[in-house]
């Protein structure tokens, strides 16, 4: 098991008395993460946690940089499952398996998977999951991908990053919640923002404050 998987399991065990038994029973499924068994286990996490599902968790110093305060025990438990299972599998298999887990997930599963994406080794490998996530209509899924999450700014190509920023504004999610936004404001993104401002004004509508933030940035 990887060091990170061990840290995550320990963290979950510190908050949940049933953790040891849960991971013990999960052992056969962890070696076959494409199986229905693993996917069912992943889906069932909040139900097994019961009243603890939404509980916030204080990560150890080793994980402080890679984690975010809004993650809950469900997110950490699922991250522990993914880290444990993926560590047993060949690298070339992981991106497709991650995407499959995302596509077949309901909203809560997708949220956990996206929030904790930066915890996986070499997260750039999971870009396709990130890009597909931005096509969602579900606000919580979109927020999990772009808000308080460094992944988009660190790994999205410019085209997809710019679209994600505009989509945030369309979904009335503050673009300033996109971690690393400022460093990726480019003349092209500013042109797109200005285009949207012009379109809103031509329609007799108000202009979202984020649009002016983008246009005026660096001016």
């Amino acid at each position, binding site marked *: 098991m990887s060091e990170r998987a061990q840290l995550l399991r320990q963290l979950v065990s510190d908050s949940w008395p049933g953790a040891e038994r849960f991971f013990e029973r999960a052992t056969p499924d962890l070696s076959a993460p494409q199986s229905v068994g693993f996917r069912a286990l992943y889906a069932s996490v909040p139900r097994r946690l019961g009243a603890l599902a939404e509980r916030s968790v204080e990560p150890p110093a080793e994980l402080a940089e890679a984690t975010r305060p809004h993650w809950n025990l469900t997110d950490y438990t699922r991250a522990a499952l993914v880290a444990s299972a993926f560590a047993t599998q060949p690298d070339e298999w992981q991106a497709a398996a991650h995407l499959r887990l995302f596509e077949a997930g309901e909203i809560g599963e997708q949220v956990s998977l996206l929030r904790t994406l930066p915890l996986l080794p070499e997260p750039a490998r999971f870009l396709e999951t990130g*890009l*597909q996530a931005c*096509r969602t209509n579900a606000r919580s899924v979109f927020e999990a991908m772009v808000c308080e999450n460094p992944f988009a700014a660190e790994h999205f190509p410019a*085209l997809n990053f710019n679209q994600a920023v505009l989509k945030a504004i369309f979904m009335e999610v503050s673009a300033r919640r996109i971690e690393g936004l400022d460093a990726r404001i480019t003349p092209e993104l500013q042109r797109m923002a200005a*285009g949207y401002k012009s*379109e809103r004004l*031509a329609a007799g509508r108000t202009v979202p404050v984020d649009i002016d933030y983008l246009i005026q940035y660096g001016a």
Partner: protein
Amino acid sequence: MLFDPHIHMTSRTTDDYQAMAAAGIRAIVEPAFWLGQPRTHVGSFEDYFLALLGWERFRASQFGIRHLCTMGLNPKEANNSRIADGVMELLRLYVEKDGVVAVGEIGYDDVTPQEEKYFKAQIELAKDAALPILIHTPHRDKKRGTERTLAVVKESGIAPELVLIDHNNEETLAGVLDSGCWAGHSIYPATKMDEQRMVTLVQRYGAERMLINSAADWGVSDPLKVPKTAQAMKDAGISAEAIDTICWKNPVNFFAQSGRFDAKSFDEALAIDQRELFEGNSVLRGQAPRTE
């Protein structure tokens, strides 16, 4: 008589069909699109296409509404390369089905290279099948996306009169009309276009090659936006002839270019017989069947 040339009835109820019929809607086009979330198998597309051609057409007919559809791989799902080629293969078959009057909705969403590849491939598919195309224009970076759409259309060599470019606004309409394509407008409760803005556009640009639709789907939308906008145009003093052109003649004439129906036959009302069944299923749940 009114025509809603872009409405996703699989997401709507029989209450909607009743209200639409009562408001004068006699024909609709249901473009193939996405379901609010991406499909994960090619087979889901096939069952969706079959539902458009089968049960949905039957449901509409039970309320005296003619149901036509367009077939296509929508731009959002064109980004999923694991399914896109399989859907393209299906489309070669489904564009030949009775009741299919265009390839659509196709075009750009995020304006990615993948979207462009399947957009162009579907224009070629339409050319081979001698069908018109219905093009969705993107919501983000709309003006640039629409300009690029027009460039792709021009480069493809498809005749502009076979092209309907949808979801126009104040900033895209002039360019679309100048290109010789037809211009659709989706009248929405809060986004896209509203009734009063549409009235202003008609006053400025006239009725030629202009269409309006509700684009009603599974989101906040209103399947009565065509009748409501027709009323707003009437209230603003726009002529009955212009309203009839926009809300009936233009969509009939545009989609009749498919050669898949006779425009003249649309002048007669569709007979309603609610005693009919589709694969043993009725739209009725204990009510007395209506026949006209």
